[in-house]
């Protein structure tokens, strides 16, 4: 088991190395450098030259990359060109916000998705199934930013119950404020994911219900809710965990649109901001953190697999 984890972790390195170089190369292909934003539009030639020299942007790209890599390997991801703050600190400030939103959204998704998934799987093709399947199709198809706009219109503009824009309030500091701030983005994001979860759960439960052991159990007269609750759920859980894991992994950087609608200070928006100001070290840092997060969660999901289903063994 430990050997497996170590091997998986080792496999991450070449991918990260490759990705970091690719990002560096890509950044340099992008028109417009970071200097413009640093010095401002009214800067003199002297200021521009001084800034280029100060940030070492006049060196060849490969030299800059190797310099960055050398430091990154020792855990130093450099300073943001724009704010002159350590990149890791900047990311560290956004990561809790991202994690909190991801968690809240997953909770919303599970609360909505699981009952819908089960209810529609119990009697496939019944009217209930159709209504619920329609609901999950709707949750999936409606663009998150439009849902966000509708929620803002209703709860912020009309009813004035919730703020139209969110900020990050750590849950343990002020649970009420945190919930108020999180409610709309978490519902928006969670609604979408609940569609995926419900659809997926329905499919795997129906698959299970056709399997032999369920037929046997039914033949033996085991009550239906016991069959669903105990036997089918356990087996359906496996692919379900994967999906939830994948979603979590995607939230690390992929909730950009929801973050934009509610102006939520997540990692995705930090990256977009960094791209817009061409803040090279910050772009590198953000993307690598997103990649590492994605891979770690994937690894975690695989391990969870083995724990849920002892038949699977990792070597």
């Amino acid at each position: 088991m430990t050997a497996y984890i170590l091997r998986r972790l080792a496999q991450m390195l070449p991918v990260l190395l490759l990705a970091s170089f690719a990002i560096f190369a890509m950044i340099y292909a992008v028109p417009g450098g970071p200097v413009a934003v640093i010095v401002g539009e009214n800067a003199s030639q002297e200021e521009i030259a001084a800034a280029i020299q100060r940030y070492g942007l006049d060196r060849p790209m490969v030299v800059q990359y190797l310099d960055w890599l050398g430091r990154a390997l020792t855990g130093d991801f450099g300073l943001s060109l724009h704010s002159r703050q350590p990149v890791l600190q900047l990311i560290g400030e956004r990561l809790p916000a991202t994690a909190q939103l991801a968690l809240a959204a997953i909770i919303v998704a599970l609360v909505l998705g699981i009952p819908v998934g089960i209810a529609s799987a119990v009697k496939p093709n019944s009217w209930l199934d159709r209504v619920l399947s329609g609901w999950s199709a709707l949750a999936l198809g409606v663009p998150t930013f439009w849902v966000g706009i509708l929620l803002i219109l209703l709860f912020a503009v009309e009813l004035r119950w919730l703020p139209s824009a969110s900020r990050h309030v750590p849950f343990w500091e002020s649970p009420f404020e945190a919930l108020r701030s999180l409610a709309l983005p978490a519902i928006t994001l969670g609604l979408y994911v609940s569609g995926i979860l419900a659809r997926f759960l329905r499919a795997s439960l129906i698959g299970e219900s056709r399997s032999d052991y369920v037929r046997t159990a039914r033949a033996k007269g085991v009550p239906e809710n016991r069959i669903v609750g105990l036997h089918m759920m356990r087996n359906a859980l496996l692919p379900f965990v994967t999906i939830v894991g994948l979603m979590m992994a995607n939230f690390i950087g992929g909730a950009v649109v929801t973050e934009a609608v509610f102006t939520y200070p997540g990692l995705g928006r930090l990256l977009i901001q960094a791209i817009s100001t061409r803040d090279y070290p910050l772009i590198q840092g953000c993307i690598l953190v997103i990649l590492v997060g994605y891979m770690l969660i994937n690894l975690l999901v695989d391990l969870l697999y083995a724990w849920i289903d002892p038949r699977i063994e990792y070597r």
Partner: protein
Amino acid sequence: MTGLAAAGRLLRRLLARRGAVLSLAFLALVGCAALFAGLLPLDPLRQSIADSLKPPSTEAWFGTDELGRDILARVVYGARTSLVTAFGAVFIAALIGVPVGLVAGFYGDWRDSVLMRCIDVLLALPNILFAMALIAVLGRSQGAALVAVGVAGIPSFARIARAQVMALRQLDFVTAVRGFGGGPGYIMFRTILPNALSPLVVQAIVLASIAILLEAALSFLGVGVPPPTPSWGEMLRTGKSYLYEAPTYAVLPGIVLTLTILSFDTIGRAMTALIDRDETDAVRETAGGRR
């Protein structure tokens, strides 16, 4: 041709489903709007600042935007932007994704590992971020949006194509073609691909809905098709900042966008269900026919 007959049968069965029929009808409407927008008495660019941010009325059914332009006209012309971007993107995704998947699945050796690792990296980065990065490189234009959305769609085509090849390559008729001296290229593209077409077509439809969503999301984030070209996502973006002054501005284009995405999705799902049901039969059938 069995393929054509199968397609005809699929369409007939599709039309038996009410949701699919409604979806097809709506898409036909949107498609016509996109194709024949020029024939309608609507001008998406004509400004009339004095009449800006008006609510829906008999003159402007959807109201007017911040520059006094007719929102309905912009929604109709926006269909063109959306559909062109979506179809172009699906085309690009298929053009690159399918061969990658075919080669990876057919050989299954180091080529498979290398190609699939690349696909993994594409998958690891959320596609919206990847698309934004690509647009940053290419500069903001409709072409850039199209390519960015297309590249984001490559992995799904590659994976499906790969899975299909792996399922089909051991079947008798493929082995037979190989026996007749068919080269790898011939086998992949002339023998296997035609038989793997239906899941790929379904994927194309599903992807079209994702592409429309992604294009709108990019425009919403302010990096999509540049104004004044009408785009649904851009309208939601601008409309969002006028929520207090003109709430319908962001709501009405959003309805059209949502219905379009839902329609593509509904048809895609209906087709998946139909194909799934008789996929095994179909494979057996075509394989038998060939033999």
